[in-house]
């Protein structure tokens, strides 16, 4: 049972003990909040939107409103068109996350490149499928395609400053814990593997710990960890499979970054290894993931 159901049950038990006037207040609050925490994506959308708002209002990470609008609009429209073409029900939550992630990560000379990124991302979900499941994390795939085409785009290193970084880390972790049943463990596996490799490198080089700590304080690493590699639709089904996949991505990214000097390495590593999830799922089978209660089977969301 998803954890959100547990929360609802527990909260409803509380109601029985609470006096009636409190009960009413709580039930109004709950009715307002329930739609938000009923699905991890709602909280993710709130978190990403908050980051983008901080970017526009206070601390500039480099995202620009026109580019962000292009990314979000293109992702939503492409989803709508593809849903209609494939006659599948429309769900705009995942494409919204894709659009927001692209807004935070991708930088381009021309703002319309973000629209191209949104279209590539969402179209890849519908076109690149194996066994009825999409292969690549949409935003990650769009980033890699555009970087390989050297189409006037680059990736923001995501240096948000220490306070925003810690706040974002805590926020993303909180969302993950609230929805622990939703395969969020891969984010922890990845973050730990990545951190362990950076620390091992520092130990080998004799570098101070400040170096790996600094290397971890990247906003783009957090977006990658909590929104891309942890995308439950494109990660292996079994816990062991997820651990193996997370470690493999961390190891390949480490190799690409430090031995091939390829930056940004994370996205390339994830996209290169994504097809391996099918192999891992075959060796370590597990039930396929679907967002929430799968009311609408087969809809690529």
């Amino acid at each position, binding site marked *: 049972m998803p954890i959100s159901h547990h929360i609802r049950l527990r909260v409803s038990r509380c109601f029985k003990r609470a006096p009636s006037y409190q009960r009413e207040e709580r039930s109004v609050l709950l009715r307002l909040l329930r739609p938000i925490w009923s699905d991890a994506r709602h909280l993710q959308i709130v978190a990403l939107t908050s980051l983008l708002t901080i970017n526009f209002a206070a601390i500039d990470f480099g995202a620009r409103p026109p580019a962000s609008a292009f990314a979000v609009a293109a992702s939503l429209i492409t989803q709508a068109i593809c849903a209609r073409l494939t006659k599948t029900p429309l769900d705009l939550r995942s494409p919204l996350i894709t659009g927001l992630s692209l807004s935070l990560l991708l930088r381009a*000379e021309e703002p319309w490149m973000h629209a191209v990124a949104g279209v590539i991302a969402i179209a890849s979900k519908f076109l690149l499928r194996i066994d009825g499941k999409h292969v690549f994390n949409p935003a990650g795939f769009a980033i890699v395609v555009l970087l390989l085409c050297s189409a006037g785009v680059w990736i923001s290193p995501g*240096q948000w*400053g220490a306070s925003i970084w810690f706040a974002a880390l805590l926020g993303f972790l909180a969302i993950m814990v609230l929805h622990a049943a939703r395969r969020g463990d891969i984010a922890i596996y990845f973050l730990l593997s990545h951190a362990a490799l950076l620390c091992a490198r520092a130990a080998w080089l004799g570098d101070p710990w400040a170096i790996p700590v600094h290397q971890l304080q990247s906003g783009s690493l957090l977006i990658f960890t909590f929104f891309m590699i942890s995308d439950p639709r494109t990660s292996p089904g079994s816990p062991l499979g997820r651990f193996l996949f997370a470690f493999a991505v961390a190891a390949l990214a480490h190799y690409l970054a430090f031995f091939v000097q390829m930056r940004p390495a994370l996205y390339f590593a994830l996209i290169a290894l994504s097809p391996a999830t099918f192999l891992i799922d075959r060796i370590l089978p597990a039930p396929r993931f679907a967002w929430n209660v799968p009311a609408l089977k087969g809809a690529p969301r």
Partner: protein
Amino acid sequence: MIGKVTSRLKVGVALVAMVSQLTAGPAAAFCGFYVAKADSKLFNKSSKVVLTRDGNQTAITMASDYEGEPKEFAVVIPVPTFIERKQIGVVDTKTIDHLDAYTAPRLVEYTDEDPCRPMMAVASVRGVPRPMAMMVQRAGDRYAGVTVEASYDVAEYDVSILSANESNGLVNWLTDNGYKIPDGATAVLGSYIKQNMRFFVAKVNRERMQLIGNGYLRPLQVRYETAKFMLPLRLGTVNANGPQDLLVYALTRKGRVEAANYRTVKLPTGMDVPLYVKAEFGKFYKAMFDHAVERENMRAVFVEYAWDMGWCDPCAAEPLSNKELVELGARWIGDASGTPFRGGGAPAFVTRLHVRYDAKSFPEDIAFLETQDRENFQGRYVLRHPWQGGASCPAAQAYRAELPVKLAKQAANVVDLTGWPRREVEAQMENNGQAGMGR
């Protein structure tokens, strides 16, 4: 060739503080160690590095405001690959000065037009040519695993390329050859050794220096091919007493350069400031930079200028010539004539980055990435002389009524940019004939 030196050389660590000034400053800098005699006076005013990059082709040109005895100067720079003689050269100091002046933050001066007869602005531009002022702090088994891979005579310098297997041998070699390495450098050298880096070490050859008869040291340039787009800063932070400043002038083909592992922030620009700032623009700019550094907790790389090399507006100095650009490593432009570069064929883009760093705020060497952003940016501050002529039309009345508001805004801008107390700014404005208007 590094032979036996008669005088004992010591490695000092360059500390750089920036002081903007309106007069042209001397040429300047380095991203490694400075070496000098224990008793010599060192004034390395700022580290300036021109980092030219096209694909993996990289050229690093290092200028130093070293003001000690030239013969006591030496430098140790980690490089990612073996360096042949033809990959090393010296560059005319004037070329770096020119690039520095061309990219300098600028004060622009306008006179408001007659409000009754719109149009007709008069503008003049002043560059802030050279920041800086600086001080230096001294820091403080033999050659196991060290290989002197090559030794070259390069103009006034003796250059050696070293590789090493372990840092102790390297430190011994450097020490025995007259480089006194500060404590704590061993670990950093060890880290570079494990990353397969070699060491470019250079000292001044007194005889050749005399023969050349310059009396000053020219900037050294190293060119190589590498996937690593970075500057090795860490050696310079060992035993440093306080933060140092570094100016990086990145010349690239595609677009703006930014730090890949630190926040890159554009400095505030385009603000109107009170007229009195003209007389102390250096002081203003330094305070503004200090304030910006403080706001970012000294963890950011600041963009002072990012522009197509083919033009400028307003120009703090003329654009560089093709020859100068090629001299700085921009060989892709394909023309080494003395005519001004106009970017007709292959484009060139310059990014001027200003970093204040120490080991705590910048623990890791700065890695860079070339973006494809060609949007022009300049650090630019504006003086507006009010219209002084007699005018009685309604527009003139409106203009005069707005003046106090504008002056108050200028005062607020300075307070916001520099953190100076408002009262002080207003007093300065009053002294400069803008009495009472800043309130």
